[in-house]
């Protein structure tokens, strides 16, 4: 059932952008994790676009948290961050109820994220 999830990485305005689509659950989260692991080392900023993600469970949240830690922990990455684009209320809700809105900058569209 992997067809329910897709993830691609591209570069927009010099920023690595990971675009995910579909359901991120315990069976698909490893694909997102693997994609984040391929990000160029020392990227000062990464944007994960969740606009087309229709489902996000705790496993997916764990992958995003690990990605944030990795970006921030990279050598010479002071001020680095992994930011999110979230458009669907249910995805924003799960970030809110888990308290994770405090560790991510969240934008309502990709242009806004890239323009910040």
């Amino acid at each position, binding site marked *: 059932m992997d067809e329910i999830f897709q993830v691609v990485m591209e570069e927009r305005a010099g920023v690595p952008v990971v675009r995910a689509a579909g*359901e991120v*659950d315990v069976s698909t989260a490893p694909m997102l994790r693997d994609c984040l692991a391929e990000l160029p080392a020392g990227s000062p900023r990464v944007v994960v676009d969740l606009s087309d993600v229709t489902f996000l*469970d*705790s496993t997916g949240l*764990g992958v995003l948290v690990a990605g944030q*830690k990795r970006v921030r922990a990279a050598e010479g990455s002071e001020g680095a961050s992994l930011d999110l684009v979230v458009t669907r209320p*249910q995805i924003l809700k799960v970030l809110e109820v*888990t308290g994770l809105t405090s560790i991510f900058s969240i934008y309502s569209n990709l242009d806004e994220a890239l323009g910040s």
Partner: protein
Amino acid sequence: MSVTVGSSGDIIPLGGEGHTVTLSMPAQPELWSLARMTASGIASRLDFNVEEIEDLRLALDELCSTVASGAGGSGRIELSYRWDESSIEIVCELTSAGEIRGEPSLVHAVQPLGEPGSPASELSVDELSARILDALVDEHGVEPSEQSRRCGWLRKRRSRGAEQS
């Protein structure tokens, strides 16, 4: 791999007492979507609103993952969906081929999680899962494991607005 579905009671119309649908499947995470789909279908027919259905789907996913943890992908999960006019209760029971290792964190989820104000970035996936269940359903729990068996449950009530519609 086999997935079986059974039902008891008169499934149409929904809303009466004593209705149950059971779903039995291998304890493999890629099949949790079937569990979510079934919950969504029942909740939809009970006039749960879209937000409540999404809450239920996510909560059930967390429950399945919690109950199946420690089984190493072996064994079977049986889900029993029971409902009345205004609520759904889902019981998730794992029967493992071998002994289940460790206890799921949700056994303790009725207790406050961590220290107040603890950084969200330091929460484990299990703790995130417990927070999700606490927030999205009215009641939930997991019984302590019995060698090759573990059982968890959740209950979600429909909002007052839906009852009036």
